[in-house]
């Protein structure tokens, strides 16, 4: 048995690990089959749009998976559904509506004909440089209903929300966490050393 396995075993065997029904539920929900997956918060066309954007933001490359390879759209849909305030969810829906209107005006009704170039142009033109952007008013996605202000999410902020949600989902996926990044659930020590020797230049997933 490897050291890591032994440690994991030891950790579990020191006591009865009680998994509550809520925990079992959430574990199940994390391992749902992406085949035949249907979004909960987003409409299907909104989820398709996020998938297109996510794969431009983090595309598949030779060595590492792309955003949709690790189910970021599923993650984002669940996050907006379970984490965002009800008020922020309404603002997201409103922002989706505005982006859709814009895409229709620029590229026609039929979303299936919108190309990667069309989506790329949306990001190029829509996402402002941090320096050119006004800061969020206090209470933006504050996670508390009463503090959430009524100002709509700007196009740029919405596209950045998708960018950061994509990054968050990507880094929190099992495949990236265990196979792409440096993964060490039981380090056993804390030392400082050479970046290349320790992880080959990658960051730790945990």
């Amino acid at each position, binding site marked *: 048995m490897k050291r890591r396995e032994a440690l994991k075993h030891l950790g579990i065997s020191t006591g009865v690990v009680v998994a509550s029904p809520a925990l079992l539920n959430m574990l199940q929900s994390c391992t749902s089959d992406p085949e035949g997956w249907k979004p909960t918060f987003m409409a299907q066309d909104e989820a398709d749009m996020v998938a297109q954007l996510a794969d431009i933001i983090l595309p598949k490359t030779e060595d590492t998976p792309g955003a949709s390879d690790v189910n970021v759209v599923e993650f984002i849909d669940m996050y907006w559904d379970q984490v965002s305030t009800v008020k922020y969810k309404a603002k997201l829906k409103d922002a989706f509506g505005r982006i859709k209107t814009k895409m229709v005006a620029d590229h026609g009704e039929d979303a299936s004909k919108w190309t990667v170039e069309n989506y790329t142009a949306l990001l190029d033109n829509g996402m402002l440089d941090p320096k050119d952007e006004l800061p969020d008013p206090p209470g933006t996605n504050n996670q508390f209903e009463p503090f959430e202000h009524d100002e709509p999410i700007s196009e740029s902020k919405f596209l950045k929300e998708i960018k950061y949600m994509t990054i968050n989902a990507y880094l929190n996926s099992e495949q990236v966490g265990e196979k*792409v990044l440096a993964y060490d659930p039981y380090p056993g020590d*804390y030392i400082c050393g050479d970046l290349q020797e320790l992880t080959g230049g990658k960051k730790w997933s945990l």
Partner: protein
Amino acid sequence: MNSCFLPNPDAQYDAIVVGTGISGGWAAKELCENGLKTLVLERGRMVKHGDYPTANLDPWDLPNGGTTTRETRIKKFKQHRTGYVTHEARQHFFVDDQKHPYKEDRRFDWIRGYHVGGRSLMWGRQSYRMGDIDFEANKKEGIAVDWPVRYKDIKPWYDKVEEYIGVSGVNAGLDILPDGNFLKPMNLNCVEEHLKEVLSTEFDDRTLMIGRTAHITEGTKEGAGRTTCQYRNRCMRGCPYGAYFSSNSSTLPAAEKTGNMTLRPNSIAYEVMYDDATQQATGVKIIDTETKEKLEFEASIVFLCASAIASTSILMQSKSDRFPNGLGNDSGELGHNIMDHHFRVGAVGTAPKGFEDKYFKGRRANGIYIPRFRNLGGKTDSPDFKRGYGYQGGANRGGTGEQIAELKYGPELKDLILKPQEWRMNLLAFGETLPDHSNRMYLDYENLDEWGLPTVVFDADFGPNEIAMRKDMQEQAIKMLEAGGFTDITPYDDIGGMGLGIHEMGTARMGRDPKTSVLNEWNQVHTCKNVYVTDGSFMTSAGCHNPSLGYMAFTARAANHAAEQFKKMNS
């Protein structure tokens, strides 16, 4: 002063301990090991060492990577003010604020865990001794009342608890931070080593060291299976290795082993019963949260270790002809002088060039410590504020950097997020709060909880001394980072609410005079000697660092005092 009490011949138990956290666990262990039949009461559910359902879950095993859901935020809206305790991997150890309400005349963030082990399961584990500079400060400055103890009284007990729980760290030979007998220290990383070097050469009044933390870094300790730290930094979920100290892994199993402990979870203690004839407490009244029954248990000795606010609330509810304002409250100080440490002030800076090729392995559940260097005499004295502060924090390569913000999309962005970001060093100051009579909690008999018990109301805030201190806390952080060649220095100061330090203290303070304090030098209620209170409520002043090690030392001392009295009476 006489500290004796009489036995209770009708009692089923020799002693009752209310609460199972840091203090209650120690009271239970020491009383049981002294041969006293002890009933240990806990208002929450049972948690045995190992009942840590999330301890081995990675972010992808948790929904939303563990981010607090809307549902959790709504239930635990006051706990959520901390910004970290409601993470889905740990929120099950923190209370539901809807179910356990309290009111705030002034904001107070009361962060609680109702289960066996209490907050010893989720504590910060930083472990420092108070010294005579702390114990003498009130007297020297004419603030509040004098501590009735000095370092020499408590030193042997600090020694005892440090040895038993295991504290890793280094000795520094400083009066402000007495040395101890430590397990091997955790390592500083290279950027922290750099700042340490800078402080030793550029400043003559300050030093940087690794934090002293209640983690086993070598060997094992007694308890329900306690072995060395695996550097996973998932402590607040409960540690399957028992590597950090908790009641669940350490003191409660020790008490259990004696055969003298009866542990009763789901039992809300709400009143200490008092007998006018003997002028002593006779026991404790509880509500069984499962059967809803009200029950009474008698004992010769009562230890209140329910946490400062809860123990004070129990004393306030313990009314009699002799004590119309709450047991032991002749002074009128019960519920007053609430303190917490103030923090969330300091600065973050980017490390100078030369560390790009360095990284770390392991997730160290510990940081740096820069001990207090203010108001220690001579040129360290500040004209603007009393007492002092220390810094915690450390250097890390996390976060989302500026480059990530600038890149919109594509392979370059992906490469960037898979690499460690630049080294950033955080100096986060923790400062002492002065005791102030106008900072208080009281009971609301109009708004009862689901058990029909009065609820707590807070009326407290930080004062001008703390606000003045914060200016220096930030300035000195900037100054040290600048001296170390750090760039992009970002100062911050967000005091938040009192209570965020999760160090509620002072509501039943110790003192020499029953007219101005609630407890004597042995943690006994001045006017009811068989009641001991040994949680944060006894603190006469706050010191500037994490207080839990002191709660353990004072509890062990008080429990042995109680056991000695008990043996004398029965011999």
